[in-house]
């Protein structure tokens, strides 16, 4: 077979967003040789799009905040479907991970006493998000990127080779992960620039590939979000959990059409923005669900007072968790109370002065001014739900981020599953990728140590098969156009497995996905291998189709509504279903879903909630089994 570029590393990290870079840093600090593979240039990962901040209970703005309160908020946000251990580790470790960034050079906004400032966000009881204006993700990615550079400079000084321990393979995409006897042996991909193949012999792969948003047309996600890590994990024998839960962010731009779906940060609401329908009504007061009634204001006057006196007033319902707000907007628009372009109004100009807006929300000001010709200091924005985040991901052990089924496979960040349950709180993703990025890097390094220096090599036959697979669309004539299939997939997912779902529609979607999968076996790509986007899409499509099927199958099985999964035919939340995780596994190019009991939350964590609240989520049997003290 053709000679291909070959490398050997202790750890290969797929993805150079926050989770991938943090994992690479940790593995390097553990003395491991690390390859970072990224589809884009370094520093362009989707993490830059995160605007609001990183949630960490540092207690800088309200000293009552602590990890227990953060844990509680996270579990509530996820409607108690979160893996408790991940939510616990996340809440405990997030402050250290944020402080650590300062020692890498990050410059967060400050409190008057010089500490890191923290802002309010949906679902968080206290101001908790460390931020830099509304460009926190950029600060995070740049800081981690610069830390990688600084480690490379150290290696240059010490060993005369800056890439001895960490090398970045930019604009390089992985198409296959290889295993032997249930353990990782390496991965293969191609250079986007030349189309030449490249293979890595490695015992440990950290998936940090982000999400799956490109299965939908209206999405805040970039072209990279094609579910690569999700699909590769399944194909390697791993499992996915919670795939039915997708977060539709309530506020995406709805106009002009070309930017439909682009994110409007939740900070707009955190800083005082209100939502109104076309009749001028602040409709969110109508949509406070029972489980949150005690935590949110019931009148506009009280909600307004909260901005200046949070101690003595309840917060406005605009700051409910994202799934609640997205559904409410969806309902308003469907009821004919939407804006001319099919959204609702989000107005921050009535509460903040133009100076405050341009200072606190500079990139939103810029984005609306340049792209929509709207001056948000004077007029409201038009917004509507956009596919933003997948709660589902690779099933992992919380402490090490290791797949329980594939030795040497790790996942962190959005591609990991379990942490956010059925719905993620804003601000919990930047902290998630720091906490679990570090843990995945550590887990991978320890796994490599446990092998005691044993060499791993990809089997030649595996490699040859993968190369032939990848080349097929280039040599085939008269087949399907990948752009057409992608577009049809997006239509199906948006129309039939979108924000509101029902059995008949999901079944219809599964039939269409199956047809698209058949057609995708016969793709044809024009041109050659040099920077050919048509070919790249053809390779990504395989992943998109597999994970779309996983989403649809899990969505069909879960017969209740919870967080990022709303069933028109099962509108209520069902305590029986709270005890169930849905696990997706690939059988050939088919997805199988099975039920698995949720891990039991230990008493000391349950005792952080009062019994009245637990009653809203748990079955009678669970409640009677609770020990006395938590009753």
């Amino acid at each position, binding site marked *: 077979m053709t000679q291909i570029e070959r490398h050997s590393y202790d750890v290969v990290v797929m993805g150079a967003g926050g989770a991938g870079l943090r994992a690479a840093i940790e593995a390097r600090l553990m003395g491991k040789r690390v390859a970072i593979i990224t589809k884009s240039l*370094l520093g*362009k990962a989707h993490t*830059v799009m995160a605007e609001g901040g990183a949630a960490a209970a540092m207690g800088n703005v309200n000293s009552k905040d602590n990890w227990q309160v953060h844990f509680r908020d996270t579990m509530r946000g996820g409607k108690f479907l979160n893996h408790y251990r991940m939510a616990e580790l996340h809440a405990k470790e997030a402050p250290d991970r944020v402080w650590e960034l*300062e020692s*890498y050079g990050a410059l967060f906004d400050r409190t008057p006493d010089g500490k890191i400032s923290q802002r309010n966000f949906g679902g968080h009881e206290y101001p908790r998000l460390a931020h830099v204006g509304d460009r926190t993700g950029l600060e995070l990615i740049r800081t981690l990127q610069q830390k990688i550079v600084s480690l490379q*400079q150290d290696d240059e000084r010490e060993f005369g080779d800056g890439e001895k321990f960490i090398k970045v393979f930019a604009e390089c995409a992985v198409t296959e992960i290889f295993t032997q006897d249930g353990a990782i042996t390496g991965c293969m991909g191609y250079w986007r620039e030349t189309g030449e193949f490249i293979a890595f012999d490695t015992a440990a792969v950290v998936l940090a590939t982000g999400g799956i948003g490109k299965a939908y047309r209206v999405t805040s996600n970039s072209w990279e979000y094609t579910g690569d890590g999700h699909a590769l994990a399944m194909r390697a024998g791993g499992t996915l959990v919670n795939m039915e839960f997708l977060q539709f962010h309530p506020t995406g731009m709805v106009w*002009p*059409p*070309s930017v439909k779906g682009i*994110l409007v940060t939740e900070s707009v609401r955190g800083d005082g923005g209100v939502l109104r329908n076309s009749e001028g009504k602040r409709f969110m007061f109508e949509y406070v669900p029972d489980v949150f009634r005690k935590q949110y204001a019931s009148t506009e006057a009280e909600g307004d007072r909260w901005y200046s006196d949070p101690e003595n007033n309840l917060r406005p319902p605009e700051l409910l968790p994202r799934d609640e707000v997205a559904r409410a907007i969806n309902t308003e628009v469907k009821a004919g109370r939407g804006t001319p372009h099919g959204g609702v109004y989000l107005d921050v100009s009535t509460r903040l002065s133009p100076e405050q807006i341009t200072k606190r929300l500079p990139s939103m000001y810029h984005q609306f001014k340049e792209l929509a010709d709207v001056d948000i200091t004077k007029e409201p924005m038009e917004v509507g739900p956009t596919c933003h985040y997948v709660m589902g991901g690779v099933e992992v052990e919380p402490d090490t981020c290791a797949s329980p089924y594939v030795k040497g496979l790790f996942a962190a960040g959005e591609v990991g599953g379990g942490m956010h349950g059925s719905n993620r709180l804003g601000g919990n993703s930047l902290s998630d990728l720091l906490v679990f990025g570090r843990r995945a890097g550590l887990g991978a390094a320890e796994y490599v140590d446990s092998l005691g220096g044993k060499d791993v090599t990809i089997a030649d036959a595996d490699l040859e098969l993968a190369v032939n697979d990848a080349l097929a669309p280039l040599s085939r004539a008269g087949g399907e156009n990948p752009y057409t299939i992608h577009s049809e997939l997006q239509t199906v997912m948006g129309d039939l497995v979108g924000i509101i779902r029902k059995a008949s529609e999901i079944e219809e979607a599964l039939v269409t996905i199956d047809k698209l999968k058949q057609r995708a076996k016969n793709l044809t790509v024009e041109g050659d291998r040099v920077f050919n986007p048509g070919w790249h899409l053809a390779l990504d499509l395989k992943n998109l189709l597999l994970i779309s099927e996983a989403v649809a199958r899990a969505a069909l099985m879960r017969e209740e509504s919870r967080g990022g999964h709303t069933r028109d035919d099962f509108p209520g939340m069902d305590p029986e279903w709270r005890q169930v995780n849905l696990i997706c596994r690939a059988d050939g190019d088919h997805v199988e879903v099975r039920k698995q009991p949720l891990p039991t939350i230990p008493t000391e964590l349950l005792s952080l909630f009062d019994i009245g609240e637990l009653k809203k989520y748990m079955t009678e049997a669970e409640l009677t089994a609770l020990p006395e003290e938590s009753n």
Partner: protein
Amino acid sequence: MGYKAKFKVYRGDGEKGDLKNYEVDVNEGEVVLDIIHRLQATQTPDLAVRWNCKAGKCGSCSAEINGKPRLMCMTRMSTFSADETITVTPMRAFPVIRDLVTDVSFNYKKAREIPAFSPPKDLKPGDYRMQQIDVERSQEFRKCIECFLCQDTCHVIRDHEENKEAFAGPRFFIRAAELDMHPLDDRDDRKSFAQEEQGIGMCNITKCCTDVCPEHIHITDNAIIPMKERVIDTKYDPLVFLGKTITRRPKETGKL
């Protein structure tokens, strides 16, 4: 209000290539990147272009539109008249890989040459205290999305390939300034580094970089000029010169 726009797009690699003519549909509210994507989806599936966020936040889709360095995702079609031919070419200061994609590795190389943030030795993480007013100067430079349009437009390298070795470019002058103005950075040689290693002296302050910055960073006024002034302050201050000569302190440079 849909119409067919006339486009000229560079097709080819670093060795050969030319401008190809296309007619493409344009709808209300679209930006140049939408038109390039429509070309890809309907006429030229192998047209190479970099992009990610489509919202001016990642700095990937840099190109030259009618000769002006711009982000394609932030250039609205409504800024052109319907009968105008719009020319899209790759950034000129960097080698073309294919079509609109250039080899920007020069910038990553320069980034690796700047000594990293040096944390204060006496402070543990969590103990950093800084005032908002003191971090704001550096924060302005950290808004940089690394689109490299400032590098592209800077005539010190745009027309003089031979200067690339000695000249880091505006993007990395603001990185030096950012570290220089960081309230807790432990190094005090950021200015001399900018002069002796980055070639800031070659900049003659034409402000072209500031003009093209999509983040509206005041590259020249807030970073380059202060860095030049301070370099001059210490380098040519007679007392400092005398002090340095008498005590024979070894020359400090930013060398790693």
